[in-house]
């Protein structure tokens, strides 16, 4: 049995996961502010191997993955990895496909199944990356290749800590919980921020990115601002504040939701409560040229001046 800590959960798992290991009970948080245990009740989750019967009634699909509500549970069936059943908000049963790679079996737990669990536990989840600094958390949203992970990784050079990459869990407050704190960087970003990719084959995900471990926080952090990154054919970096309906319309595509499982009214209410009061900026990054340092410098200045 392995023990992990992420998304505000203390996870005991029979399946290996790419998540931070739970600190020993006598260890102290090194992040900014309070440790999660100080302010939030412990949420214990167990992941065990067992039989999960196929459910032919699952209606929702993600490519060849089928998922949906199955009685009171949520079931996910990945033909090449296994079947997963979410029971309540604290138990996941896993029946791996015979001969399936354990890493692949775990990948669908961290990348998909835990998201269902988070939303059952009243979290709002965003697709993006987040860092935390002295005054709170900054979230970076955007399409694939827009620079979310790269921006988060670059901010560690300015003293910020990674909170999460890929899935950003937002609780009431709004507060960003730590998630998977390993940014995935494209080769050019890796070479610029970390080092020689020739020495990093062990970090390569087999497709196109390198998984990096940088300074990270295991502490929930109040959400300070959100940046929606959009590479554009513009001559200069532009950071434009969004308000009202334009703000919500820009955020909406980056809010994780699963048809057939998430209740639209509940999701809307959670989104308005947690994201409505937060400053949101649309960031036009020039496709040509390099605006990373300028952008991170601007964030640091905003943090000092406006978010304190």
């Amino acid at each position, binding site marked *: 049995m392995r023990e992990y800590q992420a998304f505000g959960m203390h996870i005991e798992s029979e399946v290996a996961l790419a998540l931070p290991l739970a600190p020993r009970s006598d260890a102290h948080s090194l992040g900014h502010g309070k440790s999660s245990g100080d302010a939030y009740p412990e949420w214990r989750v167990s992941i065990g191997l067992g039989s999960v019967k196929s459910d032919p009634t699952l209606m929702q699909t993600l490519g060849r993955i089928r998922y949906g509500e199955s009685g009171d549970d949520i079931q996910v069936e990945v033909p090449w990895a296994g079947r997963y059943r979410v029971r309540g908000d604290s138990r996941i049963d896993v029946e791996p496909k015979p001969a399936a790679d354990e890493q692949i079996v775990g990948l669908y737990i961290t990348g998909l199944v835990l998201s269902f669990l988070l939303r059952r536990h009243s979290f709002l989840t965003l697709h993006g990356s987040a860092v935390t600094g002295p005054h709170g958390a900054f979230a970076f949203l955007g399409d694939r290749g827009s620079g979310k992970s790269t921006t988060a990784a670059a901010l560690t050079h300015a003293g910020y800590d990674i909170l999460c990459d890929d899935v950003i869990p937002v609780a009431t407050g709004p507060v960003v919980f730590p998630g998977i704190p390993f940014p995935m960087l494209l080769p050019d970003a890796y070479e610029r921020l970390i080092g020689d990719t020739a020495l990093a084959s062990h970090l390569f995900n087999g497709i196109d990115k390198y998984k990096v471990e940088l300074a990270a926080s295991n502490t929930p952090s109040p959400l300070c601002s959100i940046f929606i990154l959009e590479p554009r054919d513009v001559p200069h970096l532009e950071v434009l504040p969004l*308000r*009202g*309906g*334009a*703000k*919500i*319309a820009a955020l*909406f595509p980056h809010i994780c939701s699963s048809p057939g499982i998430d209740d*639209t*009214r509940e999701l*809307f*209410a959670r989104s*308005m409560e947690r994201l*409505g009061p937060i400053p949101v900026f649309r960031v036009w990054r020039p496709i040509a040229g390099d605006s990373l340092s300028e952008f991170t410098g601007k964030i640091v200045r905003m943090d000092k001046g406006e978010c304190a």
Partner: protein
Amino acid sequence: MIRLNDSVLLSRVDDEAVLLDADSSVYYGLNAAGSRMFELLAECGDRESAIHLAADEYDAPEESVRNDLNALLDTMIEKGLVKEDAV
């Protein structure tokens, strides 16, 4: 009587009204003036009462307010966001 369609959710963000049509998952935003006009419509329940109040609040000619408010409400009805029942 003017009221939101059952599938439409309403919230306020930065002094603007945000409406979500839960059936189509499409968001709509009303600016501050539009939001206030819609509030008056919802409170008064009919166009003419809302027009009188809006004209007072904005110190504007009733005819101009009538044009703006009718255009707003007609658009919202066309988009399926509100219903206007005969009294």
